[in-house]
């Protein structure tokens, strides 16, 4: 967290003497009360009181600083603080009571002769938690460019956010300036930096707009770099979020996270990996969807033409289990250096489980999983849609024991997914749907090259992997896109 920063404009707004001493005190502080007679005896001193405007007694130029403007302008962290100015420039300051230091700064050798040698000061009121929020907005709110909206006194704030159309159907967190500022502490990027141009309306999303939607979604500030990377990835040509939104097919964007950030923000890749219950998993995917909805203007039954959709369109995000995986992490297989964090955004339907509690040979298990993948789009259609296979730990164990890596499994799946034309031609099996009759008898590959992505996640018990169907792959459709998280920190 950044501390409260004090802008130079603020300093100019507060009327400070150009020459002499300025002290900031509060009556509530015993050290301030201790130095009360010392301040009264100092010539040319202006004293700002943070609490009781009638304190300290005997000072001619005593000013009310209960609004803390002067304290903030002077960057006061401890009271009492004594500052010396000459020609409008600060010459030095003393914090707390130290006879030696006060004597040196003031040039009054006998200062506070009857006082103890040293007493530490107390915390400035600017550090109080109960004013922290207000001070945050006062000092840094000016950096926010989003339009301010007022929720009227008689409106319920949660209802009001529904009424204004900002919600995906679940309650959202009101994005107050203080919450957005705290969210922005999650990144070193400037609020006005453009993250991406968001479809369908092709609106530039700034870091600030993404942060506002991350607040709505319920994210913590440390999730923000992951959300920013996901927005960047989803708004690329290759991912084609516009097409994915506008198609009548029901898939939506899903995010899989790799690298150290997974553990840093407490993501789940174990039991119920694709399910509910983990704040980071649930809110990061939701924030991406809220950016598309609110910034891009992509709303269901408007540009989002999905005939069915699925519940994961509220937000679909999980982490890969890298530690327990026999495979190289997904991000590394897609070109990210080891030790770096990344997101991979891909088109996703809802997941469907594949049971295999018998196969102990990798060849058998691969063919078994391939059979589950064959149902994507339609069991008799090929090369239309991409898919993602989430291999569970108990299935991964079979591959690990046999020494299979990602490439070996991919090759085995590809082989098992070469489909016999006789089974899939239109009319075969008494089903009119299917591939058109061709002039060749060669088998057809279910997926385009690169159209099947493998991820490892899930609980330690249960021989149930999951198939996540996608959407049309490649040019004209959507391809998975990987982006690093670290540049957004």
């Amino acid at each position, binding site marked *: 967290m950044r501390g409260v920063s004090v802008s130079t404009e603020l300093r100019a707004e507060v009327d400070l003497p150009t020459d002499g001493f300025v002290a900031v005190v509060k009556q509530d502080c015993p050290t301030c009360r201790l130095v009360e007679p010392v301040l009264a005896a100092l010539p040319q001193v202006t004293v700002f009181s943070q609490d009781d405007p009638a304190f300290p007694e005997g000072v001619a130029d005593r000013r009310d600083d209960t609004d803390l403007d002067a304290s903030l302008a002077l960057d006061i962290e401890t009271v009492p603080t004594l500052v010396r100015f000459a020609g409008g420039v600060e010459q030095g300051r003393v914090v707390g009571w130290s006879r030696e230091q006060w004597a040196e700064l003031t040039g009054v050798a006998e200062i506070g002769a009857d006082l103890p040698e040293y007493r530490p000061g107390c915390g400035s009121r600017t550090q109080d938690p109960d004013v922290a929020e207000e001070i945050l907005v006062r000092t840094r709110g000016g950096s926010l460019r989003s339009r301010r909206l*007022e*929720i*009227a*006194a*008689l*409106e319920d704030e949660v*209802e*009001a956010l529904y*009424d204004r159309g900002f919600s995906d159907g679940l309650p959202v967190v009101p994005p107050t300036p203080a919450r957005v500022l705290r969210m922005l502490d999650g990144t070193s990027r400037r609020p006005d930096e453009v993250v991406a141009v968001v479809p369908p309306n092709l609106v530039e999303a700034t870091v600030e707009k993404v942060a506002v939607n991350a607040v709505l979604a319920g994210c913590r500030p440390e999730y923000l770099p992951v959300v920013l990377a996901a927005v960047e990835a989803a708004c690329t040509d290759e991912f084609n979020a516009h097409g994915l939104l506008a198609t009548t097919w029901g898939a939506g964007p899903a995010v899989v996270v790799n690298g150290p950030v997974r553990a840093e923000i407490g993501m789940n890749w174990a039991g119920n990996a694709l399910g509910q219950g983990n704040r980071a998993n649930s809110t990061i995917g939701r924030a991406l969807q809220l950016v598309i909805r609110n910034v891009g203007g992509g709303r269901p039954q408007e540009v989002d033409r999905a005939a069915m959709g699925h519940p994961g369109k509220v937000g679909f995000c999980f982490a890969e289990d890298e530690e327990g995986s026999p495979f190289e992490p997904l991000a590394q297989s897609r070109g990210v250096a080891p030790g770096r964090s990344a997101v991979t955004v891909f088109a996703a339907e809802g997941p469907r489980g594949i049971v295999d509690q018998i196969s102990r040979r990798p060849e058998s298990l691969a063919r078994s999983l391939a059979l589950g993948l064959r149902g994507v789009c339609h069991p008799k259609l090929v090369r239309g849609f991409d898919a993602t296979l989430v291999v569970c730990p108990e299935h991964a164990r079979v591959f690990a024991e046999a020494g299979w890596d990602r490439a070996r499994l991919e090759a085995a799946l590809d082989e098992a997914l070469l489909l016999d034309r006789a089974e899939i031609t239109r009319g075969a099996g008494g089903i009119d749907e299917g591939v058109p009759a061709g002039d060749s008898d060669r088998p057809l590959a279910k997926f385009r090259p690169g159209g099947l992505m493998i991820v490892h996640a899930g609980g330690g018990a249960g021989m149930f992997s999951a198939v996540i169907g996608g959407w049309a792959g490649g040019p004209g459709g959507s391809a998975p896109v990987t982006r690093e998280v670290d540049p957004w920190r």
Partner: protein
Amino acid sequence: MHDFAALEGRGVIAAFLASTQFVVAADAQARALGYREVPSVFVPHPIQDRTDEEMRALADAALEEVLAAVTRR
């Protein structure tokens, strides 16, 4: 005005009729509920001591404004 917000919030198009005595209060209440403007029709005050004939005349006079408040014209 609370009824207006409750109905519109549930997708029912609503309009609000009141006497001119109510203009300021209705505006304040609308603002408190977050609306800058609420489709309203104001008929001349007073109401309570009117004869039936006068009331019907008020309705005759208000009709066009009422239609304007609930349609796009």
